[in-house]
């Protein structure tokens, strides 16, 4: 579904992603793990088109995405939940979700299933996004991405700065989404327990290179932990 090959990204003159390859298959949840500063966020920002790439290709369902601006990538079926949520803090919860409807043609209404996935958002729908708690903002960011009916959902560190009980809730929601829809999820993470709850396959990124690729069922938790330890 999403095929990334030979992706290279630089900040100025220093290359930070040195040719990353991975494929996320249809309906698969792929987790990209790694410590801070290893390039997870850079890869995600490049996938959605916020950062420019130097080389390589990103193919979504047969369509080449490199060279397209962010909004065209969203229209092609990619959705992005950034690290730190980045919800529109001055807009109400409703308006935040409605913003995600931009590329869903013919749709003006937020589908009911969004509010059944995230009942708390319905409760808070007239509040400003900026006045929500971190966990609620994370749910809002996921809802905003989901309404565009993406083929591939990118989640960049969804558990960062969120209390443990909500992390469990988010894992459940993601599994529910995976059951309800035909969707591929690519998630970057540092918390192994959360990742094992949701992922079908785990990859590890280190210093801008993929160094480990394993299905969840035969993954060695200790080995991955050693990659993640500081």
């Amino acid at each position: 579904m999403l095929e990334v090959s030979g992706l290279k990204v630089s900040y100025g003159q220093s290359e930070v992603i040195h040719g990353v390859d991975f494929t996320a298959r249809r309906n698969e949840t792929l987790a990209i793990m790694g410590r801070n500063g290893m390039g997870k966020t850079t890869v995600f920002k490049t996938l959605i088109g916020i950062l420019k790439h130097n080389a390589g290709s990103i193919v979504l369902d047969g369509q080449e995405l490199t060279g397209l601006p962010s909004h065209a990538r969203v229209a092609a079926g990619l959705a992005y939940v950034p690290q730190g949520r980045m919800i529109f803090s001055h807009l109400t919860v409703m308006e935040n979700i409605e913003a995600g409807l931009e590329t869903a043609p013919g749709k003006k209404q937020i589908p009911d299933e969004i509010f059944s996935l995230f009942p708390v958002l319905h409760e808070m729908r007239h509040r400003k996004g900026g006045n929500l708690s971190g966990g609620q903002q994370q749910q809002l960011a996921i809802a905003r991405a989901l309404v565009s009916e993406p083929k591939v959902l990118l989640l960049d560190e969804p558990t960062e700065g969120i209390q443990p009980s909500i992390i469990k809730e988010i894992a459940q929601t993601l599994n529910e989404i995976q059951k309800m829809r035909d969707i591929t999820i690519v998630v970057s993470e540092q918390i192994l327990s959360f990742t094992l709850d949701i992922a079908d396959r785990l990859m590890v990124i280190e210093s801008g290179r993929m160094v480990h690729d394993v299905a969840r069922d035969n993954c060695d938790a200790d080995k991955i932990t050693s990659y993640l330890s500081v």
Partner: protein
Amino acid sequence: MGDFTTQELMAILAMQGFAGLSLFSVLLLMALGLAIIYGQMRVINMAHGEFMVIGAYATYLFSTFITAQMPGMLDYYLILAIPFAFLAAFVVGWIVEFLLIRHLYHRPLDTLLATWGLALIMQQAFRSGFGAREVSVRLPDWLQGSYRPTMMIDIPINGLAIMVLTILVTAGVAWLLYKSRWGLRVRCTTTNREMAGAVGINTRNVDRLTFALGCGIAGIAGAAFTTISSTGPTSGSLYIVDTFLVVVFGGAGSLLGTVASAFTIAQGQSILDFFIGGSMGKVITLLIVVAILMIRPEGLFASKVRR
């Protein structure tokens, strides 16, 4: 102020207050356009006054055309001239964004210089096209004269008409910003441009439409301006400084702030103008604005939320 009786003083206050309201109307119309452009793409449009003048000349052309071709329509032409002025400034704004502004995003100082240069070019174009002499439009009879609630108070009808227009335009902009899809796109982009793109909003298109719309509103201000004053090539530059003051004082990106600040500045200037003279009035308004901005750097109304 000892020479005035209380009654005279009240009448002066009422009339100056009303003159202030007319100034408020033009300033607000100007500031609305400037504020949405600055809010959306952080471009300070130094040529905004010239877009007002485009609206004014468009109204003038329209009125000349009507006078020559359809004198019978003279009573109602202004109603059509306003959308015409809007359209003229909107189209020029669209073209300017396409040719000039979009290449200079993320370079605030360069846009400042470029739009200032554009303002000079436009002024010269007006001078070459319409002559250096000021022109004025023929006002329909129903706009002339004044309303006199008491013997001493004299309120011009055209001032009232501009106020009504301003209220309508402000309500229209508020509706567009807070209820329309375009408004949602603008508010998303203003909060976080990268993220707006990442949820599927074509921010480039939003920029272009916003710039053109801001210029169009300046065009409406120009149409309104022709009913209270005559138009020359440099009329726009007289208003631009005050308009900036309004936008900064109100807090960029806040509609309510823009309205409140236009009101305060216009009233302050108009009333001080009578009692201590124009330039001293300006100095005092400026000092007060600077003092308030030192205490509240984000302007009068900045909304408080967790970012």
